[in-house]
C-alpha cells in the first residue's frame, strides 16, 4: 500500500512539474485498479444477468412477483412469461384482494453459484474502488485529471467536443491521463455517479443491511425500485464500457493498451 501511494505520488508529481512538454503516464495504482475493476465488472455483469434470468421481471416500489403486474419484462431465459400457476386463493374478501397461487413448473435458476460469485466480485470492486478513490483524492489525481476545470465547463466547449466525437474526429492517444472534456465528464460520471449508484442500489436489496440502515430503502423507494435502478445503472455502465473500448480502438489501441498495462506508451 505504501509503495502504491509513493508510486502514485511520484507519478503525479512528475506530471505536475512538466504539464505540457512530456505527457504523464498512468500510475501503478490507476493501472492495477483499472484492470481489477474491469475483471470484477465483467464477472458482475455475467452473474448479474444469470441472476436476472431466474426472474426477468422488473417492478417499482417494494413488492413485485409473478402474481403482480411488472413494470418491464425482459425476454431472457425460459422463465420469460412462464405461466403455470394453480390453486389461486384470495387472502381477503373482495375482488381486489391479494392472492396466493402455487407455482407448478421448474424454473431456470443458477443463482446458487451465480449470487455467490456476484458478491465475491463485488467485494473486489468495492475494496479496490475505495482504495482507488482515496488515493485519487489524496494524490490529486482526480483534481488534476478527472474533475473538469471550471473554465472547461462551458456549453460551447462541450458542444464542440461532442461534435468532434460524433464526427469520429478522435484525437490520437497520449497513453496517459491527459483527457479531453467529454472524457473527463464520462470518467467522472462513472467513478462518482454510476458506480456508487450501482453499489448502493445493490446494498438496498439486502434484507440484513436495510434492517441496519433503513435509509437505503427510503432513498430508492423500496426493494424492487432499487433492483430496477440497479439494472439500469448496469446498462449505463455497459454502454460506457462499449463506448470506452470503441474510443480506445479509434484513438490508438496499441498505445493505449501499453499505457494502461506497462505504463509506457512509447513504442521502442
Amino acid at each position, binding site marked *: 500500500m505504501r*509503495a502504491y501511494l509513493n*508510486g502514485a505520488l511520484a507519478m503525479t508529481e512528475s506530471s505536475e512539474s512538466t504539464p505540457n512538454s512530456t505527457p504523464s503516464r498512468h500510475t*501503478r495504482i490507476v*493501472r*492495477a485498479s483499472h*484492470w*481489477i475493476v474491469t475483471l470484477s465488472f465483467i464477472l458482475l455483469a455475467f452473474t448479474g444477468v444469470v*441472476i*436476472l434470468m*431466474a*426472474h426477468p*421481471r422488473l417492478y417499482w416500489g*417494494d*413488492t*413485485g*412477483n*409473478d*402474481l*403482480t403486474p411488472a413494470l418491464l419484462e425482459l425476454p431472457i431465459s425460459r422463465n420469460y412469461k412462464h405461466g403455470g*400457476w394453480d*390453486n389461486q*386463493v384470495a*387472502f*381477503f374478501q373482495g375482488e381486489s384482494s*391479494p*392472492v*396466493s*397461487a*402455487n*407455482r407448478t413448473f421448474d424454473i431456470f*435458476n443458477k*443463482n*446458487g*453459484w451465480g*449470487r*455467490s*460469485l456476484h*458478491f*465475491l466480485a463485488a*467485494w*473486489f470492486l468495492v*475494496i*479496490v474502488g475505495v482504495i482507488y478513490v482515496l488515493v485519487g483524492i489524496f494524490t490529486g489525481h482526480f483534481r488534476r485529471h478527472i474533475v473538469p476545470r471550471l473554465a472547461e465547463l462551458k456549453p460551447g466547449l462541450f458542444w464542440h467536443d461532442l461534435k468532434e466525437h460524433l464526427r469520429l474526429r478522435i484525437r490520437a492517444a497520449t497513453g496517459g491521463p491527459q483527457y479531453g472534456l467529454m472524457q473527463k465528464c464520462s470518467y467522472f460520471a462513472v467513478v462518482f455517479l454510476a458506480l456508487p449508484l450501482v453499489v448502493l442500489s445493490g446494498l438496498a*436489496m*439486502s*434484507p*440484513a*443491511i436495510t*434492517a*441496519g*440502515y*433503513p435509509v437505503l*430503502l427510503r432513498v430508492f423507494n423500496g*426493494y*424492487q425500485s432499487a*433492483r430496477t435502478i440497479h439494472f439500469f445503472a448496469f446498462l449505463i455502465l455497459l454502454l460506457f464500457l462499449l463506448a470506452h473500448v470503441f474510443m480506445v480502438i479509434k484513438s490508438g489501441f496499441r498505445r493505449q493498451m501499453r499505457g494502461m*498495462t*506497462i*505504463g*509506457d506508451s512509447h513504442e521502442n
Partner: protein
Amino acid sequence: MKTDELITRRNILIAGVTAVGGLVLTSCSKQLPPTYGNILRMGDTFTYAAHQALIPGESLVKEYSHKDISSFPATGTTNPGDPDKPNSSELYRNLQRGNFADWRLTIEGLVARPGSYSLAELKRFSARTQITRHTCEEGWTAIGEWTGVPLSRVLDAAGMLPNARFVSFYSFDDWVDNIDMLDALHPQTLLAYGMNGRDLPVAHGAPVRLRVERQLGYKSMKYIQRIVVTEEFNDGGKSGNIQNGWAWYVGI
C-alpha cells in the same frame, strides 16, 4: 524489466486483499461456518463477517401496514402431503388429515428441558404479529402478515444451555437448515402459525413455518418438524443448502 515489476505489483494488491480477508476470517473463525475450501463460500463467509461487524445486531427489518399486503407466490414444496411430488411425506399427509391436531414440534439438543409442543401449546405463548417483506432469492418480493411465537420464547422455555451456538431446523419435506444465535434470538424471528389473519395455509408451510426476516426467503423454512440446538455447525448433509450449492448465510 517493467513487465515483471507490474505483475509483481498487481499480485501484491491481490495478495493484500486476500491477506486482509484472511485476517478478518481467522480472527473470528470460531463463529463462522465452514467453507470447505470453496472460494465462493469464502466470499459468503467474508460477507457474513462484514455484516456482523457493521450491522447493529438488534436492528429490526421494516414492518409494513395492512394495506401493503401483496399477492404471495407459493414456490418450492407447496404440499408435502401430495404423494405425486418429490419430498412427499406420509407422516405429513396423516397429520394434514387430522387438521394438524396430532402435530408436535420437537425441541432437543443443548436445552435443559427437551420436549415437544403441540400447535395449541405454541399458541399459548404470547404471540407477535408483523407485516414484513419476503425477499425471494429469485428476485421477487411479497409482503405478508405473520403471526407466531418468537423463537426466543420457545428457546427460553426449553432452557437453552450456555454453549449453544446454532439452531437447526428439520422440515417434513426433508430440508435441514440452521441459523446463528443472532438470528435465533432476534425479536422478529418467529415460529409462524398464522398468515394474513388466518391459519398458515399448506402452500405457505402449515402448520408452522420459520420467519428469518433479515435473510433471503429460503432461510424461512416451511413445514417445520424438529428443532435441534447445537454447539457445532451442522451443514445438513445432502438435505442442507451448502452441499446443494446454496449459501448458508444470505443476509446478502
